[in-house]
């Protein structure tokens, strides 16, 4: 279980999260929904250790990891795909995958993980030696997802994976997310502005508004609730 309790995140004078409580159980998929500025990215970054909270705690399996820096949390099995397609543009597809592997796993061969990635996204295989910066937006997101998955993480955190992508590619990506989640103990936490796709693959959902969780429950409750769109769009 990955959870945060009373998390407060501040950037200078701006409070992005005021007392956020959330939990993700192993083997489940959870969606974090909310408009721009609701605090989704701050939440993701705080869980992964990229930003330090002003107060509150982050726990992994009951252990307080709030003081643990990001790279150590990555070794614990928390894998975050940052918002905005952040790849290492000058490195090739292969090198990106290699890097994603070698600092989270000591030893072992990255090849198995890479082959799996190329299976899910054949187009990446054909562009193995191409610099990541030259890929299309969709291909880049595929690479990011592959990098996040390559170590078979315990907690997969995806920040707006569908951002700026064509619907067909979004479908492909979510299919892979579903596949990765099914039949493994990986817990998935994904934040999205576009509600339907996220709900479709999730078991649970949390709605963030202005830095706190205002609703949470099973995803199907949200799917059947037309009031959600009203609440969401306002």
């Amino acid at each position, binding site marked *: 279980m990955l959870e945060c309790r009373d998390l407060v995140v501040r950037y200078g004078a701006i409070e992005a999260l005021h007392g956020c409580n959330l939990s993700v159980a192993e083997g489940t998929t959870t969606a974090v929904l909310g408009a721009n500025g609701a605090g989704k990215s701050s939440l993701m970054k705080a869980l992964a250790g*990229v930003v330090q909270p002003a107060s509150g705690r982050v726990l992994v399996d009951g252990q307080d990891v709030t003081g643990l820096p990001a790279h150590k949390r990555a070794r614990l099995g928390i894998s975050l795909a940052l918002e905005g397609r952040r790849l*290492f543009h000058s490195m090739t597809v292969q090198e990106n995958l290699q*890097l994603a592997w070698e600092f989270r796993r000591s030893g072992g061969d990255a090849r198995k993980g890479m082959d799996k990635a190329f299976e899910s996204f054949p187009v990446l295989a054909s562009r193995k030696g191409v610099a990541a910066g030259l890929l299309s937006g969709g291909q880049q997101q595929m690479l990011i997802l592959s990098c996040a998955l390559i170590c078979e993480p315990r907690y997969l955190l995806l920040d707006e994976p569908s951002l700026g992508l064509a619907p067909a590619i979004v479908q492909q990506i979510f299919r892979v997310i579903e596949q990765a989640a099914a039949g493994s103990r990986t817990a998935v936490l994904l934040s999205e502005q576009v509600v339907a796709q996220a709900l479709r693959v999730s078991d649970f959902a949390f709605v963030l508004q202005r830095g706190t969780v205002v609703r949470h429950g099973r995803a199907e409750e949200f799917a059947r609730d037309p009031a959600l769109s009203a609440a969401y769009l306002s």
Partner: protein
Amino acid sequence: MTFTLQLIFAGVCVGATYALIAIGLTLTFWSTRTMNFGQGSLLMVAAVAATTLMSAKLSAYAAVPIALLLSTVLMILVERIAIRPLARLGGSMGWVVATLGFGLLLQGIVARFFGSQAIMFPSLVFGPLDFVTIAGIRVSSQYLTVLACCIGLMCVMEIFIRRTRWGRAVRAVAHDAEAAAVAGVPVKRVVVASFAASGALAGLAGILVSQITGTVEPQFGFNLVILGFVAAVFGGMGSIAGALIGGIALGVAEKLAGGFVSTAFGDAMAFAILMAVLAIRPQGLFGRREILKV
């Protein structure tokens, strides 16, 4: 003709040392987007330390590594005192002035306790008069050794950066430190290591240059750092090959200008090249244009 060729050769060798300095500067730029404005004092400290130790009858095989260790440690200190607390402040002014201050502090200490006179730098492998003849030209062995060292080191670095795990880590941190952290790269460690490497390179450059010029004095590093910077910008910040080409081009231009006009003209040449590069192609030969996100 021979005169010109000799100037060119001297320029190539001297340029290779500029390239070494340039890489030392860009190492820290990669990981933190900062540079040590007092880098020149590290060159000087290593050279002075080596000289002092050798004149105390220590063998060169011990003196040089100790000198390099000293410059490495000092550079780690620079990161801790002058860069880390100030890079947060935003804007460059804080760390630029602080690193300059550190350099001046070192220079002042050396001048105070070792005197400000120039001291002779002992010959290490070859004497100043040893030469070999290549294609009919007499080429100084010292120069040749220096050139070989620089190029060898750069090849090693290029291999390190391109093919090893930690080389990838450095490239990742240079590109996007947050994304690197999330991928498991221990960013702080990489930063400190890059500063340490930069310090070692600076020390080595200082020793190699003193070997060529024959003397050391407290202020000799400052000019060199500017030249190293010009080489880095010319070749493109962050490119090792670029630094080498930039350094050599600069060295050759400087020697030719110095040989045919005057030494001051040689220095002015470096400045002019810098202005030209920044005006025409600020990313240098092999660098990448940085996009300003609003």
